């Protein structure tokens, strides 16, 4: 049992406030309980985010009170770093903002690459576009504000930084993150199961493949 702050979203959702480091354990616990058949019938989606987790429900089959009771009764699940699934993403560190990121961090471009590849990142949550993951846990020296004016078009495969996050654009789109490199990894493919390369909790290790 926890004394989390729960907020109703009309008759269709329950929003659970959580500290950033608490979202993944909360999500893991609820997802395991859901998969085991212990969630109320009518739970439709779990949406982890930066500082919250949303449970979406079908009001024809359940209600906010029942879902809130389930959330309160379900223990979080410690995220086991040592045994977490990991994926390696090869990156050409040729991004047009690489030098700007280096200048902001007081590093050389080579040191930015070293910092970005030195330790694994983790998918905290997704959003923005199918297959886009917000990666956390990287070297804090790489934190940088997003561009004041977003680019009209960022190419698919762009590896970019914003705030404490790293992300990879799954397809061409507008975007305001600082691009440090590019990858050929396929982030999103509807004919693949699962379609998204990145899912919450996954560890991501970047590997430099030349500039």
């Amino acid at each position: 049992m926890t004394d989390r702050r729960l907020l109703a979203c009309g008759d269709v959702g329950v929003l659970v406030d959580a500290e950033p480091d608490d979202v993944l354990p909360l999500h893991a616990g609820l997802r395991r309980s859901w998969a085991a058949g212990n969630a109320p019938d009518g739970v439709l989606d779990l949406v982890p985010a930066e500082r919250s987790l949303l449970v979406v429900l079908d009001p024809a089959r359940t209600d906010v009170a029942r879902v809130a009771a389930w959330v309160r009764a379900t223990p979080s699940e410690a995220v086991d770093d040592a045994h977490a699934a990991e994926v390696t993403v090869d990156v050409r560190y040729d991004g047009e903002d690489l030098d700007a990121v280096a200048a902001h961090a007081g590093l050389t471009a080579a040191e930015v690459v070293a910092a970005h590849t030195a330790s694994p990142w983790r998918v905290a949550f997704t959003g923005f576009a199918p297959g886009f993951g917000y990666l956390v846990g990287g070297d804090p020296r790489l934190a940088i504000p997003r561009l004041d004016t977003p680019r009209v078009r960022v190419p698919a495969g762009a590896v970019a930084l914003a705030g404490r996050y790293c992300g990879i654009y799954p397809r061409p789109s507008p975007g305001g993150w600082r691009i440090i490199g590019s990858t050929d990894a396929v982030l999103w493919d509807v004919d693949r199961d699962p379609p998204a390369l990145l899912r919450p909790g996954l560890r991501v290790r970047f590997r430099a493949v030349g500039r």
Partner: protein
Amino acid sequence: MSAAGPPVLDVVRAGPATTVQDLGRPGLAHLGVTRSGAADRRALRLANRLVGNPEAAAGLEVTLGGLAVRPSADVEVAVTGAGGPLDVDGRPVGRNAVLHVRAGQVLALGTATAGLRRYLAVRGGVAVPAVLGSRSRDTLAGIGPEALRDGDRLPVGPPPPGPPLVDLAPVPDPLSGEVVLDAVRGPRDDLLPAAVVDRLWAVRWSVDPASDRVGVRLALPHDDVQHGPDPAAQSGAGSVPSEGMVRGAVQVPPSGLPVLFLADHPVTGGYPVVAVLTDASADRAAQLRPGQGVRLRTVRP
């Protein structure tokens, strides 16, 4: 022209914005995929019930109108949702009722006159290939079958075992005057100044023409000056940490002009959600027409 094989619907005229929709693809939001599905789910469910389909079968969502289809074999169909002209080979037929359309006849949906979105269900369902478990077109993410084009041929699935149970459903048309939508306050109404939140309930909003399946954008009607300063003069709050969004969320960006999220809403959003429409009112919001007046009424959860 008694074609062999499963029946198809030949798209004679697609109309400006006709898509295949079912009840969407829930369960993938953690991968960044929104549910999508019929914008007015109630109307699609009704159309399916009329022709004896499972409620979640895929049909056509016809925005505004302009669709004409010609079945290759005799079919049973039903059209629900917005009011407007409906005919078979030029002969007017009823909405919210089971219609028998013979092979080669043309079923035409004219421009909606009350409400915005019309739903066409065919017994057996529209059997285009599913993507990630659904035949819905997600217009924001670009997932699912493309919007209809003239000349498309839509396969019709095998008929369900049971016969249709009802011939006619007495349902009121969507309103053409001012619409009142019910919403529950929260979850983030405490992040905005009280004056901004109060204005949400006080103003007679106007539906902005830029509205789409992602959301209904609300604007101030030009004749509405008695409420004092334009809420566009800053809502007093910028972005907040990105968090999960629901259909029906009333999001207030810094402009102060609310957006009512519909079926293709983004999975997460970064502006405060001040209220959430009830599930029934979210269906009704999907029938709002550009320029139509709308008020929000707070209800208890």
